């Protein structure tokens, strides 16, 4: 094999592997990316029922209703809009009323969000970063009211 052909083989196989990697990334991007939405986003952007999204906001005070077999319903709000969430399973340790939460699942046609995971992905001030930003956008962010992001350690349980 000549030098030139060897070089060609090398470059050719490199490009082939790279092309496969790029193709995989592009196809995965189409199917497996989940967008974060606040309740207002869900209402305004008309999220299509059945598409997988993340919904984040505050757990509305007094909205948590527990049913049989670890079923639970609660409302997620950003102060302007509220979405009902249904979930079955164990809630994270740090799930509290009045505090931030991120859920992942699909919206059903009746407008209830069927969550299959509830994340307590937040710092010790019970505020996920996405939720804090969403609240700031909707103007329901009260600085200092237990919601400040201080210079203190952060924890998450996922």
């Amino acid at each position: 094999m000549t030098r030139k052909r060897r070089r060609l083989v090398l470059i050719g196989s490199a490009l082939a592997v790279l092309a496969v990697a790029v193709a995989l990334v592009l196809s995965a991007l189409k199917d497996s990316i989940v967008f974060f939405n606040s309740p207002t986003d869900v209402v305004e952007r008309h999220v299509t029922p059945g598409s997988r999204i993340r919904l984040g906001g505050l757990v509305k005070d007094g909205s948590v209703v527990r049913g049989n077999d670890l079923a639970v319903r609660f409302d997620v709000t950003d102060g302007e809009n509220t979405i009902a969430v249904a979930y079955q399973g164990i809630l994270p340790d740090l799930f509290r009323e009045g505090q931030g939460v991120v859920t992942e699942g699909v919206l059903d046609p009746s407008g209830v969000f069927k969550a299959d995971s509830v994340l307590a992905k937040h710092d010790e001030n019970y505020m996920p970063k996405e939720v804090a930003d969403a609240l700031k956008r909707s103007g329901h962010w009260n600085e200092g009211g237990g919601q400040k992001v201080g210079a203190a350690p952060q924890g998450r349980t996922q």
Partner: protein
Amino acid sequence: MIPELGHFALVLALFLALIQASVPLLGARRNDSLLMGVAGTTAIGQFCFVALAFAALIASYVQSDFSVQTVFENSHSAMPLIYKITSAWGNHEGSMLLWVLILALFGALVAIFGGNLPDRLRANVLGVQSWIAVAFDLFILLTSNPFLRIADAPIEGRDLNPLLQDLGLAIHPPLLYLGYVGFSITFSFAIAALIEGRVDAAWARWVRPWALLAWTFLTLGIAMGSYWAYYTLGWGGWWFWDPVENASLMPWLAGTALLHSALVTEKRNALKVWTILLAILAFSLSLIGTFLVRSGVLTSVHAFASDPTRGIFILAILTLFIGGALALFAWRAPILKQGGLFAPISREGALVLNNLFLVSACATVVFGTLYPLGLEVLTGSKISVGAPFFNWTFGPIFIVLMTVVPFGPLMAWKRGDLLGVAQRLVGAIAVALIGIAVTFAVEGGGPILVPFAIGLALYLLAGAATDLIERTGLLKVPAATALARARGLPRSAWGTALAHAGLAVTLLGIIGETQWGAERIADVKPGQVLSIRRYDFQFDGTTERQGPNYHELAAHFTVRHAGDFVGVMEPSKRTFPSRGTDTNEAALMTRGFAQLYLSLGDVTPDGGIAVRLYYKPLVLLIWLGAVVMAMGGALSLSDRRLRIGAPMPARRKAAAMQPAE
């Protein structure tokens, strides 16, 4: 007094670093051995002073000196001693000090064990290493000083994040940093080579042991982190494709590629430019990982503080070092003398293929990790890139990589014989086919991929064994001869086989855990029995206990297997009043390589309790495989010392713990 001492020691370390970052490089330029010799002394001195600073910090924690800000924020007088010590690095400031300590440690190791390096290379390496030290010393002193005092010392501390009050904190960060930061040395070697404009087989021989050392620790560190997350988070998961996990995986992938490409440079004097680039990339990815984890762009248990000046400072360091290194690379790489090209079908060719796959896999992880951050900065929309993305991109690439792994060690250098190698792998392929058939027969239905994955793992395992069998002539010569040959085999051959077998073991564990596990989530009342895979769990009731700095609710379960008593499990929930947070202490019971996993949810008003119950077959193999890989790394490392004819007295060889190259 002690914190001030620590602070002062750190400042002195910075000054030593400044000297080391300039004088030896000047010496190397002027060929002045006196100036070059400064590097060794300052490197050891730097390590001593950083170690003193670190010891001072630990002393402040042990004494619960709450007049020190970080001690107040992260410690509590009622904590057990071990957590008082580990909480020293369970926060942003202390963990950065640990980072710098390990950076200085690697510099000192090169100074001590690098006696056989050419003077200029050694001076340049230590000089470059010290640039990194200057940057991070400044970062600590200017933005993250762990020794800051509070004017009015509080009586009690705010306690360590309860999730971190675990033995894992004593093991995981030091191991991970030894790996992560260890790649700084290979980076320094690469930059030194670019400065000198010379890379040869000897350079690769000196670099490889350091890459191997860092890689071995990083492997253990990642595995330890994964096991810690598995038992402490109560979700039963061991890998979440979370950005902070990816931050450690990216340098591991680049480092693995580096190990293999440095082999080609060492043995065949080829792939030089590529090896240099990989050395730069591995440490750049470590730096990116540090940035992701330490700057507060991500919310995670690893992100301790979100002070924007810190993020910008690390970003500046990142840009400076990665940008600078790549610019230097672009400028100097063309003058490096190119090694020869080689036949595609050869050991070198196989290693290149390995590098292609590893780097592509690494690229997908980098993309998946940084894409959400980039998208948010550019468009403001927040997305999450989770497991499905990585399973779909990283997974296939890695599976193909694993099918070619056994070919590498069997292939001859220069010109290999693909057919011959395939013939020698017939045994391994047969083992794989039997594995596929048996799994298929036992499984009946189920995902078709599972039997093939099992086959792949067995093929990898048998492939690693094939290499050893071929080399020792086992099955062909008498057992005694084979045994003698096995003893005579270079340890690196054993290392390679072990590392590749470790990969197979981990794969087996992953398949077992994800495909054959069982999960139950239920609400149980006292006396009730839960069953999973012939295991019965009888809930006996709950007890309340008081720990040193927490209150605990423990649930008592009696476990029976097919009717026979096998033990009790006591998962619990702990409430830490000083932080107002709860943690979940899962109970684990090991049965062979399988584990039973029990964790608690909420207590229901009618006296019941929600539980998560998992049966995880083969789960221990996931981490055992990583330990086997690390053992392979360690074996290989011990070999290099013996094999390299470095001019060094025999007695010192035996005493040297670290590679002496």
